[in-house]
């Protein structure tokens, strides 16, 4: 049974239709990626899952229970956290405070300390800059902080929205390696990317979105070989 499933999701921003019936599944232990052009509805799907926008129609199920109209903090408590698009770290707070806020919904002090160590093991740079305010970090470090903050909620499902956006090429590589590391530690990942090539290389399966619909769903390996995908998204 899938960990997360979306059924026929419709989302509107005022009168503008952003999602026109998205259905997808993420199984426990997988990395699933959504690829597509700007405005295809990738970020909106992430926002709908995390409760930041309310779908007008459709059903979101996590771990067998509906989370469709829950407020965002309750969805985090169920085990879904995200690194939002554009990183959105708390610029005037320190790195440590940002991570502390990531664990805001948790009360198990010893578990939090353990996860802090885990995050610092994944991102040693964050430990060096623990008491620096997040706004003074470089773009790559802020991305690490956004991912680290999401991990502090000890999610079962991690939503990553454009983690490689605006990063130097060598950093993009290491971010994707870290995403695989996190997945190997048992965290299921739904990854939104414009960098389709990299995303499909680390993912198990992928969905291709166009104007608010899923137009293609297949294993990542098959999508990488798919003619249309290669032409439209891999620039070949």
């Amino acid at each position, binding site marked *: 049974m899938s960990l997360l499933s979306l059924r026929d999701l419709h989302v509107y921003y005022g009168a503008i239709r952003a999602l026109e019936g998205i259905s997808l599944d993420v199984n426990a232990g997988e990395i699933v990626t959504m690829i597509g052009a700007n405005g295809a509805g990738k970020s909106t799907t992430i926002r709908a899952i995390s409760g930041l926008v309310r779908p007008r129609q459709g059903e979101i199920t996590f771990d067998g229970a509906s989370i469709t109209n829950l407020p965002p903090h309750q969805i985090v408590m169920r085990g879904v956290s995200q690194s939002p698009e554009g990183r959105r770290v708390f*610029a005037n707070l320190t790195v440590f405070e940002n991570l502390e*806020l990531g664990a*805001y919904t948790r009360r198990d002090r010893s578990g939090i300390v353990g996860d802090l160590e885990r995050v610092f093991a994944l991102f040693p740079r964050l430990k060096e800059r623990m008491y620096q305010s997040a706004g003074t970090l470089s773009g790559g470090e802020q991305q690490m902080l956004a991912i680290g903050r999401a991990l502090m909620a000890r999610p079962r499902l991690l939503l990553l929205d454009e983690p490689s956006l605006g990063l130097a090429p060598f950093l993009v590589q290491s971010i994707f390696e870290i995403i695989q590391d996190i997945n190997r530690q048992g965290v299921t990942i739904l990854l939104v990317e414009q960098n389709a090539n990299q995303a499909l290389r680390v993912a198990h399966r992928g969905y291709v979105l166009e104007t608010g619909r899923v137009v293609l769903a297949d294993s990542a390996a098959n999508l990488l070989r798919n003619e249309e995908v290669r032409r439209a998204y891999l620039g070949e």
Partner: protein
Amino acid sequence: MRFWVNRLLGVTGALALLYAISVWATENLQEYYFKVIILCGIYIILAVSLNLVNGITGQFSIGHGGFYAVGAYVGAAWTVLWQPEAARALPLLQLNTLHGHIVNLLIALMLGAFAAGCTGFLVGLPSLRLRGDYLAIVTLGFGEVIRVVLLNIDAVGGARGLIGIPSLVQSGNLGFFWVFLFVVLLIAISRNLLQSSYGLAFLAVREDEVAADATGVNTTRVKVTAFVLAAVFAGIAGVLYAHFFINISPDTFDMNTSIIITTMVVLGGSGSITGSVLAATFLTAMPELLRDFKEYRMVIFSTLLILIMLTRPQGLFGHGELGYATFQRLIRSGRGKTL
């Protein structure tokens, strides 16, 4: 156990100190200066409480005078209108002894704080949907609504206001004690909030509300809590004002009052408790100190404000605080230089 004994001793000591200062100040200070100090204390409560909303939670409210008014009027309504009735049934509530004064003041404080808190809840609700300038307009409008409503309630004197409120705050020379008791209490609450992980959520809402939502902060509850807490203390400030200065009218709580409180928060540095305290003292005392300049007084005052904002747009303290930790840091850096 030891912790609680120490804490109890600390609190008792602080209360005794406040009481001693209170008695000393009443007997030795000229009445005029004493009144200015009390007014400073009341404005410190107003500014530090508004700082919880504007500075720490980042919701721009400019209607704090409204909560101040609700507290003052509800508190005074108890003492002037309802207390005589109640005292007939309950002799404990009669106003002929000091403890009668204290009991009635505490009841007025509770009623005023409760009424203001409820109003804060109602005004906090639209803040869930409104941002920035829209919220500012709603809160400003709220302040005016309260004033106009008070103008039209005959039971509380309409435009004349309530006059001859029993001076419960100053009775037993306790004026300074009561006002600064709440000053200390509010500063302690604000400071503890800023240093707790619960308070971190308030800062998160100020920094980035969407990110706060995404990390699991219940932003709705944070914002309403901030509004209610700030309103409760503004209400307390109102009750203290009414029972110290003994006359209130709707004009006491007009838009100017709201705006001067907001100015205190911005001038001190939004989010800084120390800044709010100093700016409130400065903005209350300065117009008094400038009285020698007669009609130029407000011109000089305004010019000073403009100069401060030009030279320190982030406010006097920015996000910083002046406290024990700052002194420790200063001493440490001083030592570093000599070594």
